[in-house]
């Protein structure tokens, strides 16, 4: 009884104090006084990181999400790994592998690496993992997505499974010659094969351990082993909102790792992430929502990283008016992207006048892909108007009404309202009906081709212009707008044929991009996204990666 009275009083006091505190204005910043004993001469090599979501799975052949890839990249390694500059460097592979004359077969020698249970990492571990990834019984999403058309035999297995025919997993283009020698066959010449080998879907798995655990494999920290820089020491499973990584002493390059411990906590609310950071509960936040970015503008604790994700407006060729190239040119040039990026997005994103992102692909001469191809569609109200009038005249129309399908998040609505307003202002006689719908509906309608204009984008899974360029092939499932050009298809086919010659390959893809945008006005590019996070000034060495996992914690050190 006494206790409940006391609690009541406490509660009332607290309610009151809310109002009092709210009226008191900003008090002096004393938030950090409780911070752990980092005041000694050697700062504790431990950090606390926030994540916006739980880890759906850590079975490397099944993972599809960024936090899953982040953790996998920390606890495991494949043949290659992404270096500080995002390039793919040898990890489990010993020196330069042997590439066959036609460029389609690569033979890797493995180094002596160990799993955290003491077993050696063998060539068979790769064969086992890859076969699991493509096996329809595994129901992996990324397995077939990453392998079909790239690894020899993958597409055939998927096709056979759909047709309910027999298939043999051993037909997949991967073979263990001996314990330390691995032979991989590609479907075609893949200029980006090293980057592919760094992707978590292609990591090895310890066959004995996976089979022993069966369905429980990777269901929690105990049912998982690692061969990477860290090991997972606490994780109760996919629904856990907290997990811990600790340095793996059996890692091949353990001496290079300073960080001892990373504690992750799930915080889904954006404001709460910032409060946790300000209150000393976290050293690194997850990606900030764009409404929070302006208040940290100029603050050294906010780090912005340009991502290789590009957004554009798709124009559906099934609509007779949009099949007219002048109308497409007009729409693509009629909105001010610089303003969109600077004022509406206001988070470090930049205007996109291209579909192959900036700071994404480096050509053989060491320059950025964009350097030669530059800006292909720029905002120009006068040219837009001229093309518009020409297009309308060709169609015999004096006005046009189009539907515009956009996302339903606050940020998406703001962008879309701005773009629609710009289009209607700069193109007289145009009426655009904006529909803001949830992602799943947008996806359904895109696949069904049920739209006029559609604001969407693409994030790549390996650093090669082809991951963007093959979107617009006539038979690409991601084309979604009935774009079909024999010239464009021909250029992509040519690029694949000349892939062994890097210079010609890149030049052909650049030409394809030019044809698609500057001649056909295939899509109207809008912007390239930047992500922002908050990071404590004492944490150094966090690296943003361009594809797959978005951050690497390997090189982090904590200073005083």
């Amino acid at each position, binding site marked *: 009884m006494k206790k409940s009275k006391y609690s009541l009083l406490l*509660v009332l006091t607290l309610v009151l104090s809310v109002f009092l505190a709210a009226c008191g204005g900003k008090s002096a910043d004393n938030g950090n006084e409780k911070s752990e004993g980092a005041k000694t001469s050697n700062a504790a090599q431990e950090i606390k990181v926030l994540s916006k979501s739980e880890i759906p799975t850590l079975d490397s052949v099944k993972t599809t999400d960024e936090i899953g890839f982040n953790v996998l990249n920390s606890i495991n390694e494949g043949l290659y790994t992404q270096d500080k500059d995002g390039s793919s460097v040898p990890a489990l592979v010993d020196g330069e592998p042997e590439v066959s004359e036609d460029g389609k077969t690569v033979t890797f020698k493995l180094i002596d690496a160990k799993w955290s249970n003491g077993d050696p990492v063998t060539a068979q571990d790769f064969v086992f993992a890859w076969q699991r990834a493509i096996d329809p019984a595994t129901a992996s999403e990324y397995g077939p997505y990453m392998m079909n058309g790239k690894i020899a035999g993958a597409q055939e297995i998927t096709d056979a499974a759909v047709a309910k025919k027999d298939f043999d997993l051993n037909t997949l283009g991967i073979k263990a010659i001996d314990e330390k020698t691995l032979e991989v066959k590609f479907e075609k010449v893949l200029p980006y094969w090293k980057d592919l080998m760094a992707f978590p879907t292609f990591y090895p798995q310890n066959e004995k351990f996976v089979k022993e655990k069966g369905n429980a494999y990777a269901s929690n920290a105990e049912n998982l082993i690692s061969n990477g820089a860290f090991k997972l020491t606490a994780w109760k499973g996919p629904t856990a909102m907290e997990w811990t990584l600790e340095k793996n002493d059996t890692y091949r390059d353990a001496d290079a790792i300073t960080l001892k411990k990373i504690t992750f906590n799930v915080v889904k609310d954006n404001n709460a992430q910032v409060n946790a950071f300000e*209150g000393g509960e976290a050293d690194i936040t997850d990606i900030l929502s764009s409404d929070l970015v302006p208040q940290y503008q100029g603050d050294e604790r906010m780090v912005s990283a340009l991502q290789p994700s590009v957004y554009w407006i798709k124009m559906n060729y099934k609509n007779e008016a949009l099949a007219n190239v002048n109308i497409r040119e007009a729409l693509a040039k009629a909105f001010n992207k610089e303003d969109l990026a600077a004022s509406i997005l206001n988070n470090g994103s930049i205007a996109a006048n291209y579909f192959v992102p900036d700071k994404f692909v480096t050509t053989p001469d060491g320059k950025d892909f964009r350097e030669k191809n530059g800006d292909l569609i720029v905002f120009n109200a006068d040219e837009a108007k001229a093309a518009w009038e020409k297009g309308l005249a060709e169609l015999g129309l004096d006005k046009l009404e189009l539907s515009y399908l956009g996302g339903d998040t606050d940020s998406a609505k703001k962008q879309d309202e701005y773009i629609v307003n710009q289009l209607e202002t700069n193109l007289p006689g145009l009426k655009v009906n904006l529909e803001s719908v949830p992602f799943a509906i947008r996806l359904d309608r895109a696949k069904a081709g049920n739209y006029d204009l559609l604001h969407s984008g693409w994030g790549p899974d390996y650093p090669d212009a082809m991951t963007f360029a093959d979107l617009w092939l006539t038979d690409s499932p991601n084309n979604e707008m009935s774009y079909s050009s024999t010239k464009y298809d021909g250029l992509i086919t040519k690029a694949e044929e000349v892939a062994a010659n890097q210079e010609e390959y890149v030049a052909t893809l650049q030409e394809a991009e030019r044809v698609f945008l500057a001649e056909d006005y295939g899509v109207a590019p809008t912007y390239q996204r930047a992500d922002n996070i908050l990071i404590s000034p004492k944490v150094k060495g966090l690296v943003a990666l361009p594809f797959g996992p978005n951050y690497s914690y390997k090189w982090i050190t904590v200073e005083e």
Partner: protein
Amino acid sequence: MARYIIKRFIYMLITLFVIASLTFFLMKLIPGTPFSTAGKLSPEQLQIMKENYGLDQPIAVQYAQYIVGLLKGDLGISFQFNNVPVTQLLLERIQPSLVLGFQAIFFGTIIGIVLGVISALKQNTWIDYSSTFIAVLGKSIPNFVFAGVMQYYIGVKLGWLPVLFWKGWDYTIMPTIALAMFPIAITARFMRTEMIDVLGSDYITLAKAKGASSFEVAFKHGLRNALIPVITVLGPLTVSLMTGSLVIEQIFAIPGIGEQFVKAITVNDYSVIMGTTLLFSFMFVVIILIVDILYGVIDPRIRLSGGKK
């Protein structure tokens, strides 16, 4: 009484069955697939995924399978959390929500009743006005505003209480206060109105005439009768608080069921949607039954049908 409860229990099962069926068909109307990468997969790859989870079957077959599973107590597995059984997910996630909801309704009701009774007794004084003011605040300001303000000032700036997370009793204080604001407001307003009504009735005049003290009149005779409408609103309110609050759980990073339910809907995690709906409906019908029984306990004038023997 026992017969009454058995009858109600059978009705309850029928209600749950209807809800389960309705939700199943409504859910199938939501566009999209439960596969997070559906946008990248080719039609063949998508086909394989659907076959693996039996989603390529006709709806009627899926429904039959679902109902059979349900009768066996199998709620299926989650898509978003790689094959975690829904039962396990619900059991894990309902606990924090229950604790939080119970604390909020417990403290909220007590504070609300006290405020309401005092208001009624001291009608049109400054006490009455301040309690009205608190009630208006509690009812009109959304709880996530309280939560955000508290988190920033009490947690970040003053450092009196943990900013967020769910690691001990002190972590529950701020979310409890935020959630309790609404029940405080509701019960205070209902209590005040009912008390004023009851205090003007004949039996109170009689009690006063018998010479009962004003404390006795208010709490022994008045309160009990004024509680009936409060209990009516408290039933559904209790369920809604115990089934978790999306925003409060997100703001304080509490591993509760409220935010999980909303996320399940947005990512088409079919079995989790079904499981959570059933659990919530179950709690709801149980609470309604309890409320009906409580009526009889508080006011003997209300008789339960079938309880006459």
